[in-house]
């Protein structure tokens, strides 16, 4: 029994193929304006390494903002439920999931079965979402990967006073013009990002274990700043945090089939 999950996000589309117990293949591709085409290209990329075709998939669940427009899925499930399910499947001790996507941020509390207990999301304000980091990386002239890797220098750390992405951008430009070290500015950006996420996380009430999903979880600067601000460690997942939503969708697909069989 082979199942799949497909997560069509604002910036990236992810696909995961699952057999009985393990991940057979996974893929991440950039999202295009057409969710159906993005889904197809992510799924094709995942299928390519397995020698399987779409017809070999017994059931496929879609998630992400484009989930209603994926032609080959039989069911659509919310991103919140999928991130919870995926994180639980990877690490059953997880009770709080922080998912930072390209245009949103979610803090999700889950029970011992991986069901969502409560959640908070922000998709209204770019601060505290992946977009904040994207804007700042562009001004700093570094890649998103490099932005996360900067370590602050020995001097007085820089603090960004503004929450708003637009105002914080002006602050970053000011620091660049003042010839402040790029590493110090980048660290300030990562800390500011973590600060916004921490507010959402505290709002949902953190229970351990805590893990992070979504593309921003690959940014070590944000991750360690968030650990510091929340005063607790964040468990690292044993696979690409960006595919956890698609993984959760695939787990839903399998549960759906198992439910039908029993």
């Amino acid at each position, binding site marked *: 029994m082979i199942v799949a999950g497909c997560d069509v996000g604002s910036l990236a589309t992810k696909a995961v193929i699952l057999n009985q117990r393990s991940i057979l293949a996974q893929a991440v591709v950039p999202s295009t304006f057409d969710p159906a085409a993005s889904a197809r290209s992510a799924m094709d990329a995942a299928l390519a390494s397995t020698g399987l075709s779409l017809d070999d998939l017994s059931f496929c669940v879609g998630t992400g903002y484009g989930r209603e427009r994926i032609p080959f899925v039989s069911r659509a499930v919310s991103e919140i439920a999928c991130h919870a399910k995926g994180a639980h499947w990877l690490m059953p001790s997880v009770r709080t999931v922080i998912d930072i996507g390209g245009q949103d941020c979610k803090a999700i509390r889950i029970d011992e079965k991986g069901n969502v207990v409560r959640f908070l999301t922000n998709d*209204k*304000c*770019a601060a505290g979402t992946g977009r904040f980091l994207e804007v700042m990386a562009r001004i700093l002239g570094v890649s998103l990967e490099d932005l996360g890797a900067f370590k602050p220098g020995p001097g007085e750390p820089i603090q960004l006073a*503004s*929450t*708003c992405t637009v*105002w914080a951008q002006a602050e970053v430009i000011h620091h660049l013009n003042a010839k402040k070290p790029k590493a110090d500015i980048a660290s300030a950006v990562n800390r500011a990002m973590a600060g916004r996420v921490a507010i959402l996380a505290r709002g949902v009430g953190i229970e351990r274990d805590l893990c992070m999903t979504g593309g921003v979880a690959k940014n070590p600067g944000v991750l360690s700043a968030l650990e510091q601000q929340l005063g607790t460690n964040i468990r690292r997942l044993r696979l690409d945090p960006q595919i956890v939503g698609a993984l959760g969708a695939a787990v839903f697909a399998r549960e759906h089939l198992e439910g039908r069989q029993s």
Partner: protein
Amino acid sequence: MITAGCDVGSLSAKAVILKDGLVRSWHVIYAKPDPEESAREVMGKALEKADLDQGDIDFLVATGYGRNAVPFAHASESEIACHGRGASWLAPQVRTVIDIGGQDAKALRVDSCGRVVRYAYNDKCASGTGRFLEIMAGAMGLDVSDMGPASENAINPVAISNQCVVFAETEIISLINEGRDKSDIIAGLHRALAHRVVSLARGIEPEPVIAMTGGVAKNTGMFRALEEALGVPLLPLEIDPQIVGALGAAVIAMERLKGK
């Protein structure tokens, strides 16, 4: 008696000179990186227009975010107080002032003497300030001063679904790519900003007569959008709305002198 007001804002600096209770001259410049330099230049230009020297000014009040960097000021006053005083001096029937600046927005209620009795203020979020329109104009390849005239031709204003400047900018770009009419997009942006500002203003329970001040009030499309969002007409001011803060500072300077 000659008094002056100097309003050093984030994007522009304004100066007004009052002589015997009448506006003698005024001037507006783009702000320099150094607020002191802005103050000197704008004041110099206003003095030149009035054919006066700095020494002729009996009392000068500074306002705006750079108000503490005006070396020749005798006193400083908050922007809120100055906008209230300036609008009320121009039109004593004004009870509510809505000021949209380049980096903030304020709503304030004044009594019959022009004293501020309540106010609400946003400088935390760029959405709901003049910066919103500035960034959107940039995304559309327009100058912000083109937006008012361009919105006049709107037939079917677009509903903008994002509040955040960053997200709205992306939305605008895709609306343009979809081939939506530019006038309709601009009229939609005016509505979006008007709704943000009105939700700020609701906090102070605005009472008529309402006046709009600040550079954004020069945008005719924005003026009308704010009237629609408020559901009442705005009182047009008989002066450049951008200089109301500096005017208020000059009026306060006059009152301080008289009080002495």
